[in-house]
């Protein structure tokens, strides 16, 4: 049973560029959430996708956008990169998110460095 996978594992970009990160959820899961984890901090919620729509959003600017595909995989796009966007980006998948307390399963993350 494949867990959550993310690609690429590492990425280096320069300020102003755009980046796309990818995530495949755990088999059988239909919901994908994205988090940003800065060094020494806990993950911060960016947004969540369910049924190909953004359902919830955290306190992130519109430069952060996403997409979910019919096979439940997801992309995170960040435009006009800033130095402060350097972080580990985590994808988490879950099932039936209407149930409070549903466990989210995390992928290994994509480490983004913006120079």
């Amino acid at each position, binding site marked *: 049973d494949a867990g959550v996978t993310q690609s690429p594992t590492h990425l280096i970009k320069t300020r102003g560029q755009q980046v796309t990160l990818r995530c495949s959820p755990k088999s059988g899961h239909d919901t994908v959430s994205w988090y940003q984890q800065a060094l020494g901090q806990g993950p*911060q919620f960016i947004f969540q996708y369910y049924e190909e729509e953004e359902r*919830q959003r955290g306190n992130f600017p519109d430069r952060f956008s996403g997409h979910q595909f019919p096979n439940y995989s997801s992309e995170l796009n960040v435009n006009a990169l800033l130095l402060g966007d350097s972080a580990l980006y985590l994808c988490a998948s879950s099932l039936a998110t*209407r149930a409070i307390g549903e*466990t989210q399963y995390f992928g290994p993350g994509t480490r983004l460095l913006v120079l």
Partner: protein
Amino acid sequence: AQSVSQHNHHVILSEAASLELGCNYSYGGTVNLFWYVQYPGQHLQLLLKYFSGDPLVKGIKGFEAEFIKSKFSFNLRKPSVQWSDTAEYFCAAPATGNTGKLIFGQGTTLQVKP
């Protein structure tokens, strides 16, 4: 605003010592709480979760946590740590009225000396 706070940012223990990591949450009402662990070079994985019922929750690898509603706490414990428990530990809770968003504490780095 809702928050989850972890008291200890960096803990160093010798093998066989007992462990207790603090976690407090800021809101009342229905509460679900999680502890996640991130071993070096690995992804975040669930240690245990409290959903309802028995406030003493047992997780993987001998970890347990106790939900104390009156203290807004969900502390993680292990009677005897091993070198392999060296990792970063995160307490988390779903945002109230928002089932998709997990709020994480800033994490506690545990270093176990052999």
